[in-house]
């Protein structure tokens, strides 16, 4: 009964979304205030209905209702509760429902908190947002209905893919979707502005928090996915350039570019057309990602729903929205004239360079991802494009970005002096190069990658701090410190995020350049040395979990005669899904991770055992968190809140703050 209610709520939400697409759009066009105002309650209603529907599906999963086909295929009565819940979005149909729910949530937020928007703009934003919902709900109801009943309900389910039964992956999809779908908000604002024919500083100020929020979630989502790969796949890799990873990475790169160019729109009323284009492309790549994941066109480790019919449907959605938006852009973008002018050497130009590098890097990833398909269809040449290509083709862009970032970030708006900006950073560059060279001599004979990473990392982190310091004026040190603390939060957010990028770049190169590995047959009770550690496999026991059977190893890690950690690497078998998984055991440390994975028992006795020492691995996730946290600090900036209040005040009070 509850499942049917959920199904019904979804269809009702579909109808509401159609209304929400049409009514406010007509209202805004004709200037009918009541038609425009209808958008708000409709957006709320749509969200509530989809949330009910989602709740009904979650209920089916939690109570293990095996009369629902989706539950049969993706759940099991013995599964821990948290994975019963995460099982809701651990499959194609359920994840789509989550996707649509988040879409409606963003729409509802624009209705709830968008009171300060001009009525026509808000109506159009909500209408565009609802039209995306219409497309995806049609997709769901026609091809991927999560509420279908099973003809012969079995006694128990087939279990969720055991790899997905993991805390990291339980929250990875919701964050990713918050990011992907958050970009729909920027898209809706962009299309609404094109219909409106007006983009101004206020538009930039509204779009930026949404983009920032989406970007933060996308950053965390990608970070979680990468962390999961690190500890779950059993050899400590954290990024594979898999098509689906690329599908999440491309929108991230575009969102990062959009975030920066929206600043130029807001502060300088320039780069308007370009920002609109980025907003369209950012969401376009989200849709493209959805297409890549769900069509199975490009084989990937993630493809959980390969079905040509679904692929064609998603491609159709992609074509309609991108085609429509880009046509509108071609027709209207000339109307968006820039007000602010700027010189060749200026913050604006630096941000343009940032945008060019990010956009091109993203396109390179795109070309690499699609090339096997293009090559086979166009030239009959069957080939693969894997990590070695992406590492070679993508890395230079990130290096270039890191090199120009600290200088560009200190350039003044409008017109700057490159000599002066470089002079301020001279000491930082010297420090970075010296320390980079020092690490190179300390680790001579190993790859040059890590010292370069160290150099770039220091350049970015110290550069960001120097930027804050230079902003504090010319006074006594204590006065400067006090002033630094009182700098706007956006400045601190910027410094934090840029430092986070530096930490991440350093950590990536350190892990890749300095990790050490040991693969051997370990006899129980026998010790061996690796990289300064003495390791002993003391025992391997059979342990039973709620829905799996595990061979659990017991490994003592000793350094300088002291027990550092006792690790329990596991090899699990999930009988319901018939799949083995590895659970690596990791001793997390500030300076290094000791990472142990248990392999198979060997014919001659003993177990295959892999040991890795990964220096600075934690800094990788730390850097990603710093980036996201920087975004959060920036999001809490007074400006966004003051701007909201200022709109309601009489026009006289809304004097420019800068």
């Amino acid at each position, binding site marked *: 009964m509850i499942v049917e209610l959920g199904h019904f709520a979804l269809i009702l939400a579909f109808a509401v979304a159609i209304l929400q697409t049409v009514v406010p759009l007509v209202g805004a066009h004709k200037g009918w205030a009541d038609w425009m105002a209808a958008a708000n309650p409709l957006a709320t209603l749509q969200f509530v209905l989809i949330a009910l529907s989602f709740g009904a599906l979650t209920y089916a999963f939690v109570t293990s209702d095996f009369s629902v086909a989706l539950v049969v295929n993706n759940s099991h009565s013995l599964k821990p509760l948290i994975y019963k819940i995460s099982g809701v979005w651990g499959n194609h149909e359920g994840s789509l429902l989550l996707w649509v729910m988040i879409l409606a949530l963003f729409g509802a937020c624009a209705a709830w908190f968008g009171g300060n928007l001009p009525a026509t703009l808000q109506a159009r934003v909500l209408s565009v947002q609802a039209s995306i919902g219409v497309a995806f709900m049609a997709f769901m109801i026609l091809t991927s209905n999560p509420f279908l009943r099973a003809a012969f309900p079995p006694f128990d389910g087939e279990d969720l893919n055991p790899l997905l039964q993991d805390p990291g992956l339980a929250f990875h999809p919701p964050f990713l979707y918050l990011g992907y779908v958050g970009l729909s908000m920027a898209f809706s604002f962009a299309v609404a502005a094109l219909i409106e024919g007006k983009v101004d500083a206020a538009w930039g100020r509204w779009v930026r928090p949404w983009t920032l929020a989406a970007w933060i979630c996308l950053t965390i989502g990608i970070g979680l996915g990468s962390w999961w790969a690190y500890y779950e796949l059993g050899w400590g890799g954290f990024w594979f350039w898999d098509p689906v990873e690329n599908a999440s990475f491309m929108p991230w790169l575009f969102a990062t570019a959009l975030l920066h160019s929206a600043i130029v729109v807001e502060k300088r009323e320039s780069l308007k057309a370009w920002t609109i284009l980025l907003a369209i492309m950012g969401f376009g790549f989200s849709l493209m990602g959805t297409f890549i994941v769900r069509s199975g066109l490009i084989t990937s480790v993630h493809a959980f729903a390969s079905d040509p019919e679904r692929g064609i449907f998603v491609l159709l959605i992609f074509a309609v929205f991108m085609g429509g938006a880009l046509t509108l852009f071609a027709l209207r973008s000339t109307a968006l004239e820039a007000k602010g002018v700027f010189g060749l050497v200026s913050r604006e130009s630096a941000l343009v360079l940032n945008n*060019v590098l990010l956009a091109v890097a993203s396109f390179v990833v795109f070309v690499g991802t699609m090339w096997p398909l293009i090559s086979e269809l166009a030239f009959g*040449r069957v080939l693969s494009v894997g990590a070695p290509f992406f590492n070679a083709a993508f890395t230079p862009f990130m290096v270039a970005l890191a090199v120009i970032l600290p200088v560009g970030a200190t350039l003044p708006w409008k017109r700057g002096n490159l000599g002066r900006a470089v002079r301020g950073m001279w000491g930082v560059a010297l420090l970075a190069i010296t320390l980079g060279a020092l690490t190179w001599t300390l680790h001579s004979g190993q790859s040059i990658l890590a010292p370069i990473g160290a150099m770039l990392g220091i350049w970015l982190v110290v550069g960001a701090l120097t930027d804050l310091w230079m902003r504090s004026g010319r006074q006594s040190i204590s006065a400067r410190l006090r002033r630094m603390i009182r700098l706007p939060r956006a400045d601190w957010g910027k410094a934090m995020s840029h430092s986070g990028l530096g930490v991440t770049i350093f950590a990536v190169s350190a892990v890749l350049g300095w990790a050490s590995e040991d693969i051997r047959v370990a006899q129980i009770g026998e010790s061996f040395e690796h990289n300064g550690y003495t390791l002993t496999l003391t025992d391997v026991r059979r342990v039973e979990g709620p829905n799996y059977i595990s061979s659990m190893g017991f490994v003592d890690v000793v350094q300088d005669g002291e027990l550092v950690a006792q690790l329990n690497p596991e090899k699990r078998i999930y009988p319901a899904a018939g799949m083995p998984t590895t659970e690596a055991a990791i001793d997390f440390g500030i300076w290094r991770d000791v990472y142990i994975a248990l392999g198979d028992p060997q014919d001659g006795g003993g177990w295959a055992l892999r040991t890795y020492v990964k220096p600075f691995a934690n800094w990788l996730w730390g850097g990603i968190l710093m980036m996201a946290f920087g975004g959060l600090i920036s999001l809490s900036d007074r400006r966004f809140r003051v701007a909201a209040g200022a709109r309601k005040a009489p026009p006289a009070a809304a004097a420019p703050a800068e």
Partner: protein
Amino acid sequence: MRALFLVLMLALAAPLVATPAMAIQPDEILDDPVLEARAREITSELRCVVCRNESVDASDAEIARDIRLMVRERLVAGDSNEEAIQFMVDRFGEYILLNPRATGTNLMLWLSGPFLLLAGLGIAAVAVRRRRPASAPLSAEEEARLQQLLDE
């Protein structure tokens, strides 16, 4: 029967889903560390042909193990890295290379980055130049007005 079918399907589908990469086994490792390092380097650039975007080095599949052993055999027999890779390409086709060769139509792939960068920088430079502050000299009329203001 139905159960048997399911088991069969699972067995067939197994290499296609991401399995924990237990990858290279201790008994495969060569005694000579230099040869072994070369073998690792080569196998990490070869695709496990039945997997989804996994290198031979990281894959659990049976064929990946065979390829790992074959590469080591070739190296022990005295092949250079290129020869060992070519040996695999002759048998499995270009599909096995994770690092596509920069030849023929693949040049488009490899040059797309530099080309797009140049195009992007070109477009940006033109756009920025057009937006440079208008620093046109004052007209005679404005000059006179300015003088008048200064005199006051």
